[in-house]
């Protein structure tokens, strides 16, 4: 047996499982995105604003379509830059709606989600209907499709995710203080509005770079489900951030890997299903907070006062 014949089947085999260099880089990028979404999402969940990410995500389509219409280009950085602009604009409208029309937060969020998503779909529909050259494929931002990602795109997503993680970890003392007790934070001189605004921009950035993996409709699950799962396992915010990052990473990688088995599968639903499976398991089997643990605990009287 010569080296050549020995080597050949191996190449065929790796290609068959999709384990090319490009696939590995894409998996790494998606892993970083899932991790970042879990970490940043934990803070919005603890700040009791889990739907802010949802509003930002639905507002991204306008930016994707707008960036394509304005530049005629369809490379990922251009489209995602447009998405960041429209996601942040959507959140700004959310804040203004609440402040100047006295609309409740949930109602204002619903308005932003509905209107911005409708506008985004209308723009995408218009581009498709006119058969604009290069306009095809924009709909992959709806449900997520990582098959089209290049190694360079994936590296970009990974770098931005890692920056977001580093940033959040650096100011987590301040962000957690504001999340726990905003009045005390303000009374002790912390710029609560600025920290909130910073967190909103970060969540907008995270859902935008989650678009290729999960799509505009489902990416919000990536910033909400892993933190909820992580909360089940720990009573410390620090470990919750780490766990949420790990769960998000796992869900993103699992979803993308499974979608790679058959070409043309949208990744978003698979990523979300993987995250949901982790969450379901956590809610049932986590020690103390989990459903099983509470079945045993419930008969022990809780809350003892000082001895």
């Amino acid at each position, binding site marked *: 047996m010569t080296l050549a014949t020995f080597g050949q089947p191996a190449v065929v085999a790796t290609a068959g499982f999709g384990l090319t260099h490009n696939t590995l880089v894409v998996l790494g990028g998606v892993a970083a995105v899932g991790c970042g979404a879990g970490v940043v999402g934990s803070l919005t969940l603890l700040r009791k604003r889990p739907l802010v990410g949802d509003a930002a995500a639905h507002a991204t389509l306008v930016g994707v379509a707008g960036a394509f219409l304005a530049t005629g280009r369809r490379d990922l950085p251009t489209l995602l830059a447009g998405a960041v602009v429209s996601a942040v604009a959507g959140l700004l409208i959310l804040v203004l709606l609440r402040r100047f029309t006295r609309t409740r937060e949930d109602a204002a969020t619903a308005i932003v989600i509905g209107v911005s998503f409708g506008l985004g779909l209308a723009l995408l529909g218009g581009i498709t209907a006119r058969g604009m050259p290069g306009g095809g494929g924009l709909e992959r931002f709806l449900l997520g499709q990582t098959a089209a990602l290049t190694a360079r795109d994936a590296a970009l997503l990974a770098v931005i995710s890692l920056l977001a993680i580093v940033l959040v970890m650096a*100011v987590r*003392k301040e962000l957690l203080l504001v999340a726990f007790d905003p009045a005390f934070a303000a*009374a*002790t*001189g912390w710029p609560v509005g600025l920290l909130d605004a910073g967190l909103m921009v970060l969540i907008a950035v995270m859902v935008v770079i989650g678009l290729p993996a999960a799509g505009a409709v489902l990416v919000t699950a990536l910033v909400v489900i892993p933190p909820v799962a992580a909360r089940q396992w*720990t*009573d*410390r915010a620090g470990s919750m951030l780490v766990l949420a990052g790990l769960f998000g990473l796992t869900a993103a990688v699992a979803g993308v890997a499974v979608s790679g088995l058959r070409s043309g599968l949208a990744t978003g639903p698979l990523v979300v299903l993987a995250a949901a499976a982790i969450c379901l398991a956590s809610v049932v089997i986590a020690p103390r907070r989990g459903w099983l643990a509470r079945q045993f605990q419930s008969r022990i009287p809780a809350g003892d*006062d*000082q001895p």
Partner: protein
Amino acid sequence: MNAGQQPLVEFHDVTVAYGRRPVLWNIDLAIANPCLFGVIGPNGAGKSTLLKAALGLVPVVGGYVRFGGLPLRQVRGRVGYVPQRETVDWDFPVNVMDVVLMGTYGRLGWLRWPGRRERAVAAECLERVGLADLAHRQIGRLSGGQQQRVFLARALAQEADIYLLDEPMAGVDVRSQEQIFGVLAALRDAGRLVIVVHHDLRTAAEWFDQVALIDRRLVAAGPTAAVLTTENLQQTYAGGIELLEQLGQAVAERGRTE
């Protein structure tokens, strides 16, 4: 005694409104010396708002608040705050020590983490409120009185000169109440000014050196015995049902202690 010096806290003609609805009208109140100071009044009288105005948490539409003659931003580190207990989510993933350490954040500033000194301060504050052995318990697994004492310990960790407490006795068992008042009295004896929003007239007459009666405007302020008169109380709780039960108790209590 304090002649020529600025009062520790001065509310000058303070008016606060939420939207177009005024909550506090023209409050003029100066506290010159360290003492245990009670802010008393019916529900919705603006007692908490008075503290929030002092801390810059609600916009003041008229007048100003000064601390020793200085605006808040120059003395923030010297003002400790205990918000109402139910304003936070006690299921938050932090333990008792984490919350008390938050009191040291103001001094630490951005990007710096509590170190050995901060942990020692926090442990000592927990000791003072009698929670030293619960430092590592998740805050959701505490009784109401214990949660209130955690908030008090956090304020102590601010190492302030002036303390503002919003209803620290609400939903607290008698033993915790006495422990909290003990800590506050010790602060007063150490030369701190302690301002407490309080709703229970009977214990107010018992504990505070000075009180202010508030019902959207200032009804009266001064030494407790001089302020808690039947006439002042009637003005403050005009026609309120809680007056009927509380007034009798307060006056009887005052008669006994005098």
